[in-house]
């Protein structure tokens, strides 16, 4: 138990014990790391395997080939780059709009006192307990009906999908955001108000700059989760050129999984790369954002 060791006085025997303990733990770490990164290594290897099939792959390919990546670039039988772009676009727009909606609403909840405020806050939280996934059928039917009248937000449109994502934007996020805003002292607002500032000015000039770090974290978490969302996009998008990367790759891999393994791997790697990079660079902030809201209290 590591946290105990550090409190013991460094007698000679104990220093030896500590070395053994670290050694054992390093071995454990090694085993765990193999478990952790093997699938990733395997995909990397598959993406450079020139034969591109599941059956012929070895961890270290006999000879490297970029054939799978060339196939991706050529986008012969499937529009990979289109999907990739769609995903980046949809996740980006959703993340920015959702952040805007929640921040503005959270400000009202944090700074104004009005009748029904508590009830609304609780209701928003409770409503979001009902997972979007569960209302999938209803959402699908509704979007098909809307499609008959307002086709540009109907089935198979990115606008429709983004609106459905935004329908779930208020929820836990509004609580998180309001929590952060509550930590900004009200004295700031009041002195600004005495000088004649409007609520909107206070919000944009005073509160938003103070919250910038957490806003960025929430936007990134939103981005990552939208980027990885599968089932709503799967149900609402119908044609190949509208698919997001997740839908496209899932359908692409669904047929002839074996032969397409290499190309799939190359696509999965490129698709995963932006998110992995974001995570590894910002891991502390993201972890903080993910856990903080729920842990406090």
């Amino acid at each position, binding site marked *: 138990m590591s946290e105990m060791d550090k409190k013991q006085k460094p007698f000679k025997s104990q220093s030896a014990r500590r070395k053994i303990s670290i050694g054992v733990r390093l071995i454990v770490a090694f085993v765990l790391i193999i478990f952790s990164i093997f699938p990733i290594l395997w995909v990397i290897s598959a993406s450079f395997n020139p034969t591109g099939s599941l059956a012929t792959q070895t961890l270290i390919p006999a000879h490297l080939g970029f054939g799978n990546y060339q196939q991706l670039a050529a986008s012969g039988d499937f529009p990979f780059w289109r999907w990739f772009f769609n995903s980046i676009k949809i996740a980006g727009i959703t993340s920015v709009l959702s952040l805007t909606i929640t921040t503005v609403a959270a400000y009202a909840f944090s700074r104004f006192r009005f009748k029904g405020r508590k009830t609304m806050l609780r209701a928003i939280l409770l409503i979001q307990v009902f*997972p979007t996934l569960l209302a999938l059928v209803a*959402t699908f039917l509704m979007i098909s009906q809307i499609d008959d009248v307002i086709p540009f937000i109907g089935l198979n449109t990115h606008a429709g999908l983004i609106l459905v994502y935004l329908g779930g934007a208020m929820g836990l996020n509004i609580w998180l955001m309001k929590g952060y805003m509550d930590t900004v002292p009200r004295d700031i607002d*009041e002195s600004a108000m005495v000088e004649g500032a409007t609520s909107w000015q206070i919000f944009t000039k005073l509160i938003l700059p103070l919250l910038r770090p957490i806003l960025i974290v929430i936007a990134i978490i939103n981005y990552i989760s939208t980027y990885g969302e599968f089932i709503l996009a799967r149900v609402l998008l119908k044609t190949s050129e509208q698919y997001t990367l997740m839908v496209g790759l899932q359908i692409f891999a669904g047929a002839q999984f*074996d032969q397409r393994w290499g190309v799939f791997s190359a696509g999965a790697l490129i698709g995963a790369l932006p998110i992995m990079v974001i995570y590894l660079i910002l891991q502390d902030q993201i972890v903080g954002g993910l856990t903080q809201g729920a842990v406090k209290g």
Partner: protein
Amino acid sequence: MASSTPLGNRKKPAFLPKTVSSQLIIIILLLVGDAAVGWVISQFVSLGYTPLAAAFFAIALAVNIILLVKKAYPLRWMVAGLVLMALFTIYPILFTVWVSFTNYGEGHLITEELAIQHILEIKYLPEDSKAYSWTAFKSDSGDYALWLIDAEGQPYLATEGELIAQPVPGQAGIGELDADGIPVTIEGYQRLNSILAATDPNLSNILFGQEDKTIQVRSPQEAAELVQKYVYDPERDVMIDQEDGTVYSNLRGTFSSPTGEVLKPGFIANIGLENFKRFFVSPALRGPLVRIIVWNFSFAGISLVLNFALGLLIAVLFNDPGFPLKKLIRSLLIVPYTVPALLTILVWRGMLNPELGVISRVLENLIGWAPPWFTDQWWAKVAVIIINLWLSYPYFMLISSGALQSIPDEYYDAAQVDGANGWQKFWKITFPLLLVAVGPLLISSFVFNFNNFNLIYIFNGGGPPMANTPTPAGHTDILISYVYNLAFSASRGVDYGFAAAITIVIFFIVGTITLIQFNYTKMWEEVSENV
């Protein structure tokens, strides 16, 4: 939202719109918006989408009130979010609740109004309807025309899909009439003699004329007008067969005769708690459903324990400030968490592929045997749990190490003085304190796995399939993936009503757990806490 008071209450409300012009702009924008929404609503109504039209109307009304009533000012800040939430979250929930009380699904996809319309279009050829003598004409392209003469000697000309006309000889290509009052020629058509006409295989199947007046050949001598087969009686909500007088009464969305014959199409009807009854008592469903529910809870529970245990173990092992390569180890260990899960589930599916996948091949080589990950129900379950462990232990590792650092050293010092060993310190100090900190996250995680649709659906589609079930079900299916199959895989007919009912059941399970969590974390109290 009756009263809104500004902060501090010491000045006049600073948040009210200041200028007349800004107020005017709001009103103009609102009018334009209302006009657009009004048009959309009218379109929905004309298409028969009444619930959606009502939802749009209610939302538009609320938006108008929020934007025009001064007291509702705070709500203006969240009007976009509220509209989106109402439309894309609340409406689908209410719709799901409504559907759960109906038979919406295969054979019951349209409203009663529409179904009645369809049924009223059905016609039949009665024995005693108005009769005509007929002569057939055939065009070169194979179209038919009928020259009809009724009992009073009045002639008519009937073609497919066109209004039955009273022809004038000499006009519109109609030639001279012969002794029987039948034209010798009609332009573009060839007159058929009675033998040809009587033996023509098509003739007796053709419906001449248009919908409101249709004529069909009944015998070589006679053609007759078809009449509407069913008449709807709105008072009793029954269909009456005009041919034999059978009364078809509305039985749960299908017009059925006392002897069990039914009229198609059926329609959406309220069937009360029938779907829920089926969920709880239907003997055919009970077998698969009980297994799915048991597996659903076990999967969520086992996953939680395993994932948390591994995450915690790692956190404890490397929670040593001086541990070599700590940062690198952590970065490598969170890798599974950084890749979109959908992609890695597909990768695992490839790696576990029997014969071709790397894991199966390595095991074959090492021990000469590989588990049938996809075809055996138990190994499929093991595979799902292993993949889930890989996907989520990094999350637990991260939250556990965060929580570990928040435990004050004094506790350990005190335990040290009391002579506690490492094992005791872990179970008596570390674990209980940690549990307090991460408890709510564990509950969220359980709820998440309870509905972990992506993993189940993408890895194996819930397979392997159970044998002899009334609706498709698999051994690794959880409730939510089972619902998805009911609603979207049409192989045995979609059943939205039943799917919605199960959805409601899931909601109650998840809702109860979440309410416990809210109370546990005192989330409710947070509302009144600040300022």
